[in-house]
């Protein structure tokens, strides 16, 4: 690029539209984090496209001063795929929610990840349907009492990260709306990733499911209930950094450091492990009491990009056959002349 990139500030990514989320909604924090990180990325503003589906989170594009597309329920990954594969030069981000991405749009979500289309996906998980006023969602816990389940829901929830890993997503991470510094760090890593970057962002709906993530976010609980994953660092957590996670057979176990057990005895986090089984174990360890919820990047591997593959195929054929000649195409095969 010959033109120098303008120096952007957060303000350059804000629109004049009044933000219409409920006061106190976790979405504000996520919007703020994204608007803070985009100016740092060294990408011209006009190259950004933010695509969303339907739901509270999907109002996101209206508040981002970039190109934006508020599509229909569940279809954001498919629309974004069309944008990205026809224009690989664009930086396409998807804003979606647990209902949008995992219920009505579940199919598109897994296929986007399977193909490894270069999209960054922000999945706002508040474990509830907000815009339709409080029905349980595919991530709500069993027994959830909500508008449509007065006697408690019977559905088993998706483990969001396990699902993404099952689709062999090349980048899988988790952060929390209120952990701004952590969230921005994850956003930066996602932006740098080549391929589908899937981020589950735990987000509080203070109207219909207030406090859903309190056990992770409350000051006195968070250190014991979460573990911050860092590539190359040991899996250690707890207020006093005295608990570690190690392998026991095919399972994980929590151990207390000391008495001869040191950081050398626990797992060293390797986000580049190509075998998704490791990240899969991490993604679901908190389903067992005593285990922390992992935050940060579970998996970040390099795999061929879908949109690059498409372009390579086209260029390969052109290199072999020459650029298409319409006259020749129309006259191909058996023809005859009528005089």
């Amino acid at each position, binding site marked *: 690029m010959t033109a120098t990139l303008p120096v952007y500030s957060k303000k350059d990514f804000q*629109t004049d*539209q009044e933000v219409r989320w409920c006061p106190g909604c976790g979405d504000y924090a996520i919007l703020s984090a994204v608007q803070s990180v985009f100016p740092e990325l060294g990408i*011209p*503003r*006009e*190259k*950004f*496209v933010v*695509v969303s589906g*339907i739901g509270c989170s999907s109002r996101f*594009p*209206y508040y*981002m*001063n*970039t*190109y*934006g*597309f*508020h*599509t*229909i329920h569940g*279809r954001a*990954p*498919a*629309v*974004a*795929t*069309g*944008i*990205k*594969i*026809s*224009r690989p*030069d*664009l930086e396409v981000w998807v804003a979606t929610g647990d209902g949008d991405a995992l219920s009505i749009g579940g*199919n*598109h979500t897994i*296929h986007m990840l399977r193909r490894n289309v270069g999209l960054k996906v922000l999945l706002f998980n508040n474990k509830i349907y907000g815009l339709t006023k409080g029905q349980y969602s595919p991530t709500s816990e069993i027994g959830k009492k909500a508008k449509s389940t007065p006697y408690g829901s019977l559905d088993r929830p998706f483990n969001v990260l396990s699902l993404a890993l099952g689709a062999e997503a090349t980048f899988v991470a988790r952060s929390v709306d209120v952990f701004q510094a952590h969230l921005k760090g994850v956003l930066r890593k996602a932006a740098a990733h080549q391929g589908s970057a899937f981020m589950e962002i735990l987000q509080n709906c203070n109207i219909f499911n207030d406090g859903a993530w309190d056990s992770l976010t409350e000051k006195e609980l968070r250190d014991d209930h979460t573990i911050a994953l860092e590539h190359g660092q040991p899996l250690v957590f707890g207020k006093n950094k005295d608990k570690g996670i190690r392998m026991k057979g095919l399972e994980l176990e929590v151990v207390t450091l000391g008495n001869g057990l040191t950081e050398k005895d626990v797992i060293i986090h390797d986000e580049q492990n190509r075998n998704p089984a490791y990240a899969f174990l991490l993604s679901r360890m908190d389903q067992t009491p005593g285990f922390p919820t992992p935050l940060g990047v579970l998996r970040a591997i390099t795999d061929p990009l879908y949109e690059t593959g*498409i372009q390579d*195929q*086209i260029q*390969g*054929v*052109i290199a072999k*056959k*020459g*650029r*298409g000649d*319409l*006259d020749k*195409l*129309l*006259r191909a*095969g*058996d*023809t*005859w*002349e*009528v*005089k």
Partner: protein
Amino acid sequence: MGRGVKRRPYRFDILRGCRLVAQSQGGLQEPQSEVDQPFMATAEAPVKSRTQETLAGAVIRFCGDSGDGMQITGSQFTNTAAVFGNDLATFPDFPAEIRAPAGTLPGVSGFQLNFASTDVYTPGDSVDVLIAMNPAALKMNVADLKTNGILIVNTDNFKDVDLKKAQMTSNPLEDRSLDGYRVFAVELTKLTRAALKDLGMDAKSMDRCKNFFALGMCYWLYSRPMDTTFRWLDEKFGNKPLLAEANKRAMKAGFAFCDATEAFQVRYDIPPAKLSPGLYRNISGNSALAMGFVAASRQCGLPLFLGSYPITPASDILHELSMYKEFGVITFQAEDEIAAISSVIGAAYAGALAITTTSGPGMALKTEAMGLAVATELPIVVCDIQRGGPSTGLPTKTEQADLLQALFGRNSEAPIPVIAASTPGDCFWVALEASRIATKYMVPVIILSDGYLANGAEPWKIPTVEELPSFPVKFRTEAGGFQPYARDPGTLSRPWAVPGTPGLEHRIGGLEKQDGTGNVNYEALNHEHMVHLRAAKVEAIAQDIPEVVPVGDPEGDLLIVGWGSTYGAITAALRAQREKGRKVGHVHLRHLNPLPKNLGSVLKRYKKVVVPEMNLGQLVMVLRAKFLVDAIGYNKVQGKPFKQSEIEAKIEELIGVTK
């Protein structure tokens, strides 16, 4: 020399065939007893002379098990007839099951071809020559064979077990039920094996060539050169020369068999048709549509993007476009119908000529996304290759019952221009027209084709690129005064501002917009204004499409109004009826939304209006509602196209001709 020939296993059968020939011609000729090189005939010339008769045209139908290769056989005869210069129309008719149990009635696959030295508009109402590979095929098709028509059957497939599979209680080759036809009972399987015996193939592989033996017989019967098919075999089996050789040999053997045995007393000539001068090729509707979009991409200057999910009978368009990578075409086989159209909406937003292809069930799934394209005013083209319904319906059979779905099948007021192709070749032009309207007016456009057009073929005069309409697209690039929903006063279209353009960052979506700014807006009067605006934009396209000019009588007793694939049958019927002095006109609608602006006045020039449709009366409902004319529906919903005779009978009924 083939072992089969030495033993003359077919002698009885040929005599029997000749007996029937004798009945119709008044004399029985003893077949020549010595044939030295029966399978050595070349592609160029027959070995023995025979009575040669010139015909204006013929209708031939190949039918057999869906694994018997009838579609290939028919297509090859078609290509040869086309290259020879005949006008033609085809009707491939196959089951939805890829391989229904062999020999059963549901597994029967057929391919009908009408080829002539005169203009051909339909695949033909009845059949001159029927090739039936098994009893099931015979049972399902023999009713369409003309009295005294030629019937070639493979007697090797007429054992008790075969008859049972076809639910036949007696052998039609023996029970005299076929006495009204000229039957040629041929041991196709045995003769094919004999011809291929020294190629070292297993029996199963040899048997798969028997359709080419039958094809060779037909080439002999209609004096056709085999070289076009030989070339095709060489291409098709480039890596498997043995298979190419085997099929060629089977074909030559069939040709030589006819020549040597003198089973047929007459060979037929069908001279080339007098088509308008130019270079021609044979083309199917799906092929034409695929090439039409490649052409449209060039003519508007945008890359072509196809997002599609496989569905019968539309999949061939996806197959074909996926081969045209040298034109920069991106084909995306999506995870489902909804993803297909959604990806297309994304690609259109990003600046591609974006299209999706589907059939009725897929249309139903795409409905919500089409509404999004209406609301965001993005140019996409949705091709509905209609098939029988409702639900899964008749996947491989044709129907025109998606018209109302195309016109109205969305929530709320969501007008979309609808264009219908009338012949296989017309699909090419319709692709260009739909792309032109979509990009000029910033609207989604629906193309209606159907299974009959998609798989049917006709000779097509190849246009030069210079003859194609050009409609270059200009994206909005100036930032000054930009509003995403500002209107072009001429077309009412909004600017196409693609991501990547500095200064034009904007947001669009399915929520109601404020006119001009495009901001989300729920105000009552703005909404009403936008609903009217979207309707007016589509309505205004009527100023940009040709008026209708009736074919035949410009006024008179009866106007036939058709759309889509009924074109051929209506045209043929109209010609025949006008030759009998009837005052009939024909309007065939290409634009179904908006309708041509003079249509209302044309309808009123005739005493009666009839609308033949392969549905229960969808266009007729629209015409009655829009123009308050007492139009009469003529409806057929059998998964089959209209016959010329059916349309003619309706014309006579409505005009009051007493027989």
